[in-house]
């Protein structure tokens, strides 16, 4: 029942988790009268407490992680998470960057992945349609792919540890300094 009624009026909340704004612009293009997503009852809620679908763009940075979890918890169930763009899907070029967590699925379970750099409005609409298909399946009691949460070991991700990195840097500096200060006569 809950899912069935959600199919006809998915309200979205868009959050930029660290995107370059390319995908954001495409999402706003999707919301313009040209594509008219209100045909499907889709509204841009702009408020996590009113929204049903969380649309995320960009790799999750260390700074946005807590905000993202906060927004996710504010949304009442049932809710969907949609990762738009290559960065949100997998982390793309930022995959082992010291300041990112990787894709959205390292932080939240993701229902729909929309790849593309940047994802075109048509692809975003297609993603929403896929999400609604999944909801329809769940509402009918049919099996549907569960939301995906990337487990450790899925792809090798280096966990960034500032302490260890600092120690490593200190050791490297000390080694370089030691090499410089070493008496030349020994060689």
């Amino acid at each position, binding site marked *: 029942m809950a899912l069935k009624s959600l199919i006809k009026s998915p309200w979205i909340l868009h959050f930029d988790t660290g995107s370059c704004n390319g995908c954001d612009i495409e999402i706003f293009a999707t919301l313009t009268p040209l594509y008219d997503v209100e045909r499907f009852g889709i509204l841009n809620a*702009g408020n996590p*407490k009113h929204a049903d679908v969380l649309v995320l763009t960009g790799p999750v940075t260390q700074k946005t992680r807590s905000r993202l979890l906060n927004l996710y918890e*504010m949304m009442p169930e049932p809710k969907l998470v949609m990762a738009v763009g290559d960065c949100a899907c997998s982390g793309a070029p930022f995959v082992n960057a010291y300041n990112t967590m990787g894709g959205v699925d390292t932080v939240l379970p993701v229902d729909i992945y929309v790849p593309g750099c940047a994802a075109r409005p048509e692809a975003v609409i297609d993603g929403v349609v896929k999400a609604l298909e999944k909801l329809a399946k769940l509402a009918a009691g049919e099996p549907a792919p569960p939301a995906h949460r990337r487990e450790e070991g899925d792809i090798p991700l280096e966990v960034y540890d500032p302490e260890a990195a600092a120690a490593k840097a200190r050791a490297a500096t000390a080694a370089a300094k030691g090499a410089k200060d070493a008496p030349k006569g020994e060689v």
Partner: protein
Amino acid sequence: MDYLWLVIATVITVIAPFAVAVLAGIDRRITARMQNRVGPPILQPIYDLMKLLSKTKMLINKGQIILATLYVAMSILALWMFIAGADLLIIFFVLSAAAAFYTLAAYAVLSPFSQLGATRELIQLLAYEPVVLMVFFGVYLVNGDFSSAATDKMLILWLPLMFAAMILVLLVKLQKSPYDVAEAHTEIVGGPEVEYSGKFLGLVKVGHWYEAALMFAVISLFFGHPNMYIAFAGKLILVFLALFIVILVDNSTARLRFGQMARVVLTYGLALTVVNALVVWAVQEGVIPWP
């Protein structure tokens, strides 16, 4: 009072929000056509409500929800009293109480957007209430009493300026631009609505629909005819006309600041009603000769 009519009034009160939901659907459809797009199905507001009511409960504090429930109850009571043919002045006070509860509910949460919205809601309450009161007074001048029961008199011929003032009130009450200052989705993310979620947002929406139903009922008061069918058709056409004007204004203007809203409604809106009331009084007293 006739008990059968009270039962009928109750039935109409139960159906009213669905009628307003269809009107809201038509509103969204016409808005979409004005923006050169297709738009949602006519029943979209009902789908939205069903979805909201089926979501999980999340509440900030109990006080907010109790006050919001009182707001909805007062809105329902105001509409029921109107259909049952009660005194317009009492309906006015019940309507004010509803708006006051809504404002208090918004003040009950500490979100800055909610607080801002509540303050704006109060300002807009101060702005449109005198106008509504004057419109009810105009109805009294023509009909001879404050009853909300439909009469044979064609009020719009007597009170055309009051009808124009009611359009201003409708713009404020239905949260349409340029006077959607309290809601202001793009500015203060929904104002008083910001902290409701799921089921409770649905509850507040129902309250809004009851308020809108009452406003449309006041609009329908402006048309009267001895023939029941002509009267009904005329009332319906008048409501659609008012709604169309509101949609047209909504789509061709941008939001003003709440101070500007208060200024326009309290000067032009109130002046329209006062002038209209004075002219009606002068004609009735024979000061102005009327054919």
